[in-house]
């Protein structure tokens, strides 16, 4: 889709540098793209690709240490690089608006949302006095906030994440700008909310004739909402093409890899790997099937209530807000079984109780009620503080969501991996331990020379591998994976998912895979449990749940997760 008229925004050879203590670092190099009137442009890239920096440069809100080193940026013919601060301020908000991720923190926490909208209306002299207020309410109505009169008086913390993002959109659209830049507008939101927000943005854009730049790491999202996509990698544009062209015939290997790595409703784990990986296209590793055996894990009537708990320091002002909320049920009478060798997916949106469930099974949290049996042994009765030395401890291991947070910053990778071996392993002597650590590193494809490094010297994928190696060090029979790839870029996620599939095949473990993303869970699990508000809404074989969901909620969940169009012949041709 080419536009014949002048582009609304034109970026030519943009280079952005950041002054750091190590000298200048180029975050964006030689980036060029145009945004036509009425167009929706997607900028897609993994972390560190420079996609956000590009938009900040465009808006002139780079951090103090960043500067545009080269290139031209124009908006409607106005040279943005040479515009005065006063001009820029007029352009921002009135001509080009921007919305961000983390909508809740994007709003001033101690100012009523209505007033925040009014601030902008007044600043740009769009409205004054009571008129501003009326207009603010109208705007809230326009972003489909119910009961806008009342919400006008709300503080951000009183609104849900989705609501906050609507308010942010209202802020952005207050002065009827011509361009909207949405920087990861739905990251951190649940998929169902994501869909409504994205639909809202699309609809409003159409209504107001907005041109939109959508910045995201999610190819599927970009594919669903954009006309044209710019793919960025390490500060440079690798490919820019209309959606159908891009997905139909990706020219750049990186684009292709990115497309491949995005999980979708069908396809194998192996297929996520980049086309140049030798395993790409191989059949998935087969788990050692031990179905029909006795249940490895039985959960019955598991319930967790969180009560209001005071603490000794509570009344002091610096301990403000530490008390927990009043009693509420995070997990409500949950029961399911997991057989040896089987993998079960536990799926739900944030706050559904899936993590609490996994923590209770791991015995990191004491359940309020209910039983957890591992290999027929009741383990929920053992207090979590006493469980550390229990023999069942070794059988039950865990892979954490955040690979950074789960590694002690003062331990080397080797020390991290050896910790369970030293504590619970039966190995004697430093040599044996070292050998085992190296064996494990091999198992998770972690180069041995990285073993002596500290977590901050490792990449996200490497840290994830260290975490997995630690978890499998004791040959557990059940491994609980708590969103193990949620913090990773898709290409790294692909590798990690494959590693997990391989490990399962090699070691014959059972997985309890906790995730918000059915498309990811599907890849590793035979069975899946869908949770919502502490209870199970649906349970069944993965294929069945994916294809013929029984409940409306599961259907909604499936419908909400965006999916890139299938890549066509181009891919096959590359084979």
């Amino acid at each position, binding site marked *: 889709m080419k536009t014949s008229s002048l582009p609304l925004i034109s970026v030519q050879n943009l280079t952005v540098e950041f002054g750091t*203590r190590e000298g200048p670092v180029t975050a964006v190099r030689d980036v060029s793209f145009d945004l036509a009137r009425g167009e929706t442009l997607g900028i897609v890239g993994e*972390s*560190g690709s420079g996609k956000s920096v590009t938009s900040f440069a465009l808006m002139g809100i780079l951090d103090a240490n960043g500067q545009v080193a080269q290139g031209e940026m124009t908006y409607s013919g106005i040279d943005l690089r040479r515009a005065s601060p006063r001009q820029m301020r007029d352009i921002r908000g009135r001509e080009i608006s921007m919305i961000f991720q983390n909508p809740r923190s994007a709003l001033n926490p101690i100012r009523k949302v209505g007033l925040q909208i009014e601030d902008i209306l007044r600043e740009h002299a769009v409205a004054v006095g009571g008129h501003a207020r009326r207009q603010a309410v109208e705007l809230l109505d326009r972003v489909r906030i119910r009961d806008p009169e009342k919400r006008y008086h709300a503080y951000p913390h009183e609104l849900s994440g989705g609501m906050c993002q609507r308010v942010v959109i209202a802020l952005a659209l207050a002065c009827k700008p011509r361009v909207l830049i949405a920087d990861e507008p739905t990251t951190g939101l649940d998929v169902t909310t994501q869909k409504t927000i994205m639909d809202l943005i699309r609809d409003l854009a159409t209504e107001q004739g907005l041109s939109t730049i959508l910045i995201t790491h999610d190819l599927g999202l970009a594919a669903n909402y954009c006309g044209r996509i710019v793919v960025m990698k390490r500060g440079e544009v690798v490919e820019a093409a209309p959606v159908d062209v891009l997905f139909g015939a990706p020219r750049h290997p990186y684009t292709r890899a990115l497309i491949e790595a995005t999980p979708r409703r069908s396809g194998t784990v192996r297929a996520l790997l980049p086309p140049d990986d030798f395993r790409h296209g191989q059949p998935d590793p087969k788990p050692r099937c031990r179905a029909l055996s006795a249940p490895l894990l039985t959960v019955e009537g598991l319930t967790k209530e969180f009560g209001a708990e005071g*603490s000794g*320091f509570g009344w002091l002002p610096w301990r403000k807000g530490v008390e927990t909320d009043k009693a509420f049920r995070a997990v409500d009478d949950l029961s399911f079984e997991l057989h040896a060798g089987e993998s079960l997916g536990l799926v739900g949106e944030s706050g559904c109780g899936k993590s609490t469930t996994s923590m209770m099974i791991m015995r990191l949290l004491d359940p309020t009620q209910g039983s957890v049996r591992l290999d027929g042994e009741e383990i929920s009765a053992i207090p979590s503080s006493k469980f550390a030395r229990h023999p069942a401890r070794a059988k039950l291991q865990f892979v*954490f969501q955040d690979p950074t947070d789960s590694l002690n910053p003062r331990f080397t990778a080797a020390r991290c991996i050896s910790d369970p071996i030293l504590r619970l392993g039966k190995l004697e002597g430093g040599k044996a331990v070292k050998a085992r650590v190296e064996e494990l590193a091999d198992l998770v494809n972690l180069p041995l020379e990285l073993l002596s490094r500290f977590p901050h010297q490792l990449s996200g994928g490497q840290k994830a591998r260290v975490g997995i190696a*630690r978890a499998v060090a004791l040959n557990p029979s059940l491994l609980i994976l708590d969103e193990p790839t949620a913090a990773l870029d898709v290409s790294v996620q692909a590798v990690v998912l494959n590693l997990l599939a391989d490990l399962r095949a090699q070691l014959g473990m059972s997985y309890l895979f906790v995730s918000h993303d059915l498309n990811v869970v599907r890849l590793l699990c035979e069975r899946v449990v869908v949770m919502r508000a502490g209870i199970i809404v649906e349970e069944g074989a993965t294929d069945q749940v994916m294809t013929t969901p029984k409940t409306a909620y599961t259907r909604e969940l499936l419908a909400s997760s965006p999916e890139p169009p299938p890549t066509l012949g181009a891919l096959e041709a590359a084979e």
Partner: protein
Amino acid sequence: MADVTAFKAGVKPRNHIVYILTENPVSIVAIAGFAVIVFAAIFGPLVAPYDPLATNVAISLHPPSWDHWFGTDQLGRDVFSRVLVAARLDLMISVSAVALSFVIGATIGSAAGYFGGWTDRITGRVVDTIMAFPLFVLAMGIVAALGNTVENIIYATAIINVPFYARVARAEAAIRRTAGFVQAAKLSGNSDLRILATQVFPNALPPMAVQASLNMGWAILNAAGLSFIGLGVRPPTPEWGIMVAEGANFIISGEWWLAIFPGLALMLTVFTFNLLGDALRDIVDPRQRT
């Protein structure tokens, strides 16, 4: 902002320190000052031009001169020598006090933060109780009650410092209690005490070290304040606080050097420690810098 922060990762610690120093020239001054103070504390008695205790009434209350840089006091003792030699005692008091409160505060604080529940509640009450006192008066009371010795000054200063460490340690431990690596350590079969000792505590150390260096200055001031009102240090031992206190009576009559020089020494030392604390905080946690 993920894109930007990605560049900041992977900076080597030593470069970081160099960076902090060049970024903040004041720190260099602080380090130089610190070197001088430590030098005085270690070699003060050796390099002092006169015996700090030797009296010579014939030259009492002489103003600063080439022979006596900071003048002489009521008994004809060399003020410069006394100021120099006092550095050791003052540092000894404050370092011991801070070390003591560090150990106690860190122990009870991290235990409270890590275990929570009753441990937290009880230590919380203890800390609250200490905090509810006017701290300097509490220190005075302790020294007055326990007896008038340097050790008791150290104990008193330590006790009134404990809440600060306990609070920092508690907060740090409470944050880390739920950290992934602590959970992971539990899964690896570590006992609570071991986790506290090997996982939580070492990671809580840097912020506490910052607190310690910031508190050093305060500890020195407190100790000096105590001896200012006559508690603790035995004459003729030179100590800055008491020298200021004694010198104060001479200011109006024109013998300003008696109070001014030890006062300046005290001030510069505290100043140096505070600046060092700042620098240390910059190194440990740049975001915290205030």
